[in-house]
């Protein structure tokens, strides 16, 4: 079923919208969640929450990129869950990603705290748009989808060192971009 057809079901408040969404995207969303959460149960829950949230916001919303829309919700859910787990001293794998990203963060004085989030979001978008396709793809797979480096390397048919190198360069560029 096409995304538009699924969205029509949502707008018609047809319960099968959830079923169709699940059929089409559950696996994908689960991958997104699982990359952030070590617990499969937590990941399942995030996906389930995603359906719930989607049902809540559509209508009136009608996302143009339905798949990305779903993935965003799942990612946010997973991140929240990860935070909660970490707060309870149950740290998970994404800590590695966090430590990598620390390299890209400018000093606190560089960015005014109140505007930090807004500016940074814009700058990241701009930054991504200026990256070459491959670097952007690798960056997104690592820091949006939270794929492991080995998984990225394997799926791209590249060596892990190449992926690491690309990520390192991109992080340094991001730091510069955020510092400006």
């Amino acid at each position, binding site marked *: 079923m096409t995304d538009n057809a699924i969205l029509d079901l949502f707008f018609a*408040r047809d*319960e099968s919208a*959830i079923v169709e969404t699940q059929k089409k995207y*559950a*696996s*994908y969303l*689960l*991958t997104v969640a699982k990359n952030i959460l070590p617990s499969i*149960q937590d*990941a*399942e829950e995030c996906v*389930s*929450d995603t*359906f*719930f*949230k989607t*049902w*809540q916001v559509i209508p009136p919303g009608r996302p143009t*990129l339905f*798949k*990305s*829309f779903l*993935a*965003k*919700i799942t*990612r*946010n*859910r997973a*991140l*929240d869950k990860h*935070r*909660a787990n970490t*707060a*309870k*001293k149950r740290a998970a794998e*994404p800590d590695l*990603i*966090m*430590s990598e*990203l*620390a390299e890209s*963060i400018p000093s*606190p004085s560089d*960015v005014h705290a109140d505007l*930090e*989030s807004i500016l*940074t*979001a814009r700058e*990241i*978008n701009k930054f*991504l748009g200026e990256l070459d396709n491959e670097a*952007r*793809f690798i960056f*997104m*797979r690592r*820091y949006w989808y939270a794929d492991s480096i080995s*998984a990225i390397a*394997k*799926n*791209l048919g590249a060596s892990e060192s190449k992926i690491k190198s690309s990520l390192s360069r991109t992080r340094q560029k991001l730091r510069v971009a955020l510092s400006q």
Partner: protein
Amino acid sequence: MKPEKLFELIGEVDEKFVAEAAEYPKKSRRGVGLLMRLAAAACLVFVAGASVWIVGNLRSTTIESGAGIYCENLLLAEFLSQFSSFHSFGVLTPDGQFRDLSGRLLRQTPQVQWTGRQFLTESGDVIPPDALFVNHDDISVATSFALYNIGGTPLVQIEFTPVATLERTWDIRYDAGTLFPNLSDFEGHIWDTQHASEWHFDEANVNFTPVFHSLHNPEWQHFKHINGEFVRVEFNPPDGVPVEHFTRAWGFDENGEFIGGRRPLPYLREVYFGLASMQFLRSNEGSLYCSVGGIYWRVRFNDGIIEPLERLPWRHPDRLTSLRMNETEVVVSGLLRQLFEPESDEIANRLAEERPRLENDSRIEVSAETIADFLVSHPALLGFGIRQHQGMYICLLGTILPERPPVVGEWRGDELWTRYFIFEDSPPHANIHIQTTSDGRLAVAQQFFLYEIDGEIILQIELWSVTGEGDNESVFFRYVNTAWLRSEEIFDGRNLASLRLFETEEAVNNILRSRSHLIRESHETLLSQMKAERDAMQERHENAIAGAIVIRNGRLYLDPVEILWFTDEQLEYNARRLSGMFPADAQRNWWDVWFFREIENAETSEFGIGTGTALVYINRLAGIWGDMDAGQHMNDFFEYAPSMTVFDETFIGTSPQGRGIFFVQPNGTRVSRLTFEARYMQ
């Protein structure tokens, strides 16, 4: 900015970038997809004994390379959704016939779909998990499946087990503490945990125990092992939804409204937790049972009074569950009446016939006599109190004693945050020193109850393990000639119907209330706070555990409930409960619910109390705002909520394992909640 924040911001980038990276380049994926299609078309099925092996070629991401063995439910779901041959998942009889999961003979390969959460028939009907256990001797059922990668070849195994075997192994499984047969005959088998979790069996309690994760079957299922037989009892809450383990369920209710995520039902929680040690069960035919002190009774509720109808020959002599009758029946009786109202005229008529006989019996009553009155008239009990390592001595009523009372028993030092003693000023027979449970776990006396059975005064002290591990225990004392004599089989030969309970909490509350100067939130204020918190959490996409807390009568009440998905009605219920619109007994019940949750927390870590949220509520109630998000680390709390210094040098925190809540001091030592209250809440 923290890396976590950056990671979060990256999550908000333009969706076109997200979509662009949603899939790996097709060139690298095409080969895998081709392999999958080839594999699906060329699935090889081996029938070997009772097992069906399907050798396929799974997608590389499905099975971890080199992991050797890997099985996860979602992977299985993914697999099943891709391999049509698995839609024949069902029952294979010894003669090669297929039956559906309910045992019905099928003319053709059954089309049973596994969605990852439940089995569906072709028409989309949910097949309850217990249908996996079909009651036919001549057929096998698919009891497990496992995914492997052996020597580079992905394998899927479906285990078909004859029903007769299942029945024979029933007791074995019980002894092993799991409801499923141990099918790990071959090396490396990994059990399908999805199913195992559905059939939770609490061996320790050896009681009717709600089966969690009953997502497939919207009923609470209780099991009991009685005289070698395994008895299943249905329990049908009106909404048909278990409380805590609804978290991964989603669907549509009778009104067509979508139900997803967490949606705890507070009154069911109340029933479950509030009556945890006095379990109420309803059988299929509508009879209501309860277990008290390890003895099972058929009972009924009548205007808040528990009426025993019949003593049942079920007993577990090795376990005396605590008797807690004083604080529960008033608050929950109305709810229980809803839950346990006889459904059929037949049952109602039968109860009506029994009424004349019952009315001639002594019934369990809740006396107006208070614990305070009792203590005054029985001075020996005044010695029952606690000693804190800070040097203060507080009796159970909260009175700080001027000097160290003579203590009976040994003191092992300051490794514990509090100890409970019966002091020497009790009569000689009252030399009670409670510190360990029967199996040696260190415990504290959490609460005590007074009641009268057969004209004799009984004191029950409930022990809680200080670590939160294991079961609670109770010790019993008979009051004989102004002395307390410890008794073991306190209920043997007793007429439970003669039990007369002394109200305890009201007196305690009265005393504490007189000292309380803390904020008393109105129902409306609490409700608005909770609604605001819920809405804010939903707005922030937070899925953290929220809490509600109220300081009342000098005591701190915390509800680690998850309010995120509460409806307005559910919030209304909680706010009303919190704000004291229930009678005093309800407040006691509330306290107990809280503490039970804390213990539960320690055992499962699943109910991690959102410390930050709790503190938000504390701050709000105290009129001090702390900008805290739920689930933030304690370090964040110290950073963001310095206002908590209102409590001097004592802070509220979670244990290093995230278990429970206690109060910590800057030097790392813990103090008990009672100490905390005594010091700061008076």
